[in-house]
């Protein structure tokens, strides 16, 4: 058994064990940490397969960003269940294991039935990051744009879902602004001139008053 084969089996064992840890851990923090281990191991497997850019991107994106996001949410929320569901493992475990064995047996039969892949994997050439980037930005450029729009819409959706209105914030209401009439803002009053001596400017007949209504419905409404 070569060294690479040994590495493959070690990483596979760690990956499956950490996946079991994700689904079996009691506390969500333990699940999240097991998931981090699973991502790391999967990145190692991908690098073993020659996809070193994807492995590093997996570590950066998932371990660096998504898992921190998960841990933030775990810390923010009260993750304890109100009434402790004491799962009766003596009753629930055998059907689960049976379902798992049947599922895996079906998948394994399908995979091993094919005549493909009897020979060993080809040894990956060193460094395909350049070729990956060229394929992504040349042949798959429209798909890349669609994925960018998907990420943008996911961001907008996440903000729109969790955003709460601040009751103290002062903001404009366009419907109220549009519903206002000229009479609400401006009132023409007839009044006599109060000072007789300086009537050289002919403003005595009408006086434009802005605001200052006694009922408080001035310009500030």
């Amino acid at each position, binding site marked *: 058994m070569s060294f690479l084969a040994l590495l493959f089996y070690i990483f596979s064992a760690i990956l499956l064990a950490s996946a079991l840890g994700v689904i079996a851990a009691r506390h969500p923090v333990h699940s999240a940490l097991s998931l981090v281990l699973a991502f790391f191991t999967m990145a190692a497997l991908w690098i073993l397969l020659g996809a070193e850019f994807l492995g590093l991107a997996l570590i950066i994106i*998932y371990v660096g960003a998504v898992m921190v996001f998960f841990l933030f949410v775990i810390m923010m929320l009260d993750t304890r269940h109100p009434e402790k*569901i004491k799962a009766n493992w003596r009753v629930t475990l055998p059907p689960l294991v049976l379902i798992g064995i049947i599922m895996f047996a079906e998948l394994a039969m399908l995979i091993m039935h094919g005549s493909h892949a009897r020979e060993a994997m080809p040894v990956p050439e060193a460094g395909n990051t350049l070729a990956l980037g060229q394929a992504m930005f040349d042949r798959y450029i429209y798909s890349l744009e669609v994925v960018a729009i998907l990420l943008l819409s996911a961001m907008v959706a996440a903000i729109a879902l969790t955003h709460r209105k601040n009751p103290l914030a002062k903001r404009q209401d366009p419907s109220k602004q549009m519903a206002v009439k000229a009479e609400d803002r401006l009132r023409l009053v007839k009044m006599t001139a109060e000072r007789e001596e300086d009537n050289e400017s002919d403003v005595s007949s009408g006086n434009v008053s802005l605001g200052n209504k006694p009922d408080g419905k001035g310009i500030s409404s």
Partner: protein
Amino acid sequence: MMPGIEPTLTHYLLLSAALLTICMVGLIANRRNMLVLLMIVELVLLSANLNFVAVSAYLSDLNGQVMTMFVLATAAAESAVGLALLIVVFRRRKTIGIDAVNTLKG
């Protein structure tokens, strides 16, 4: 005919199937926590990605790795929206237990 001891494509596909099986059993068994449910969905997408990468390496074809990039981006978007929904559910129900969200009686 059992696969040999050197890792071939069959080994990688079997590993991916085993990971998927574990995740499915976890999805069925999980009754406590929607957060763990989201993590399990991430693991399911990861096992799909392992298929893509393994077949891409086997065929020496780079298109599978480009698809893996897209799946990674989609999974990130999914987790963002899923966690936002989780926070909304927590605000309404004060819990993130799965049995708290049973209005549809499904």
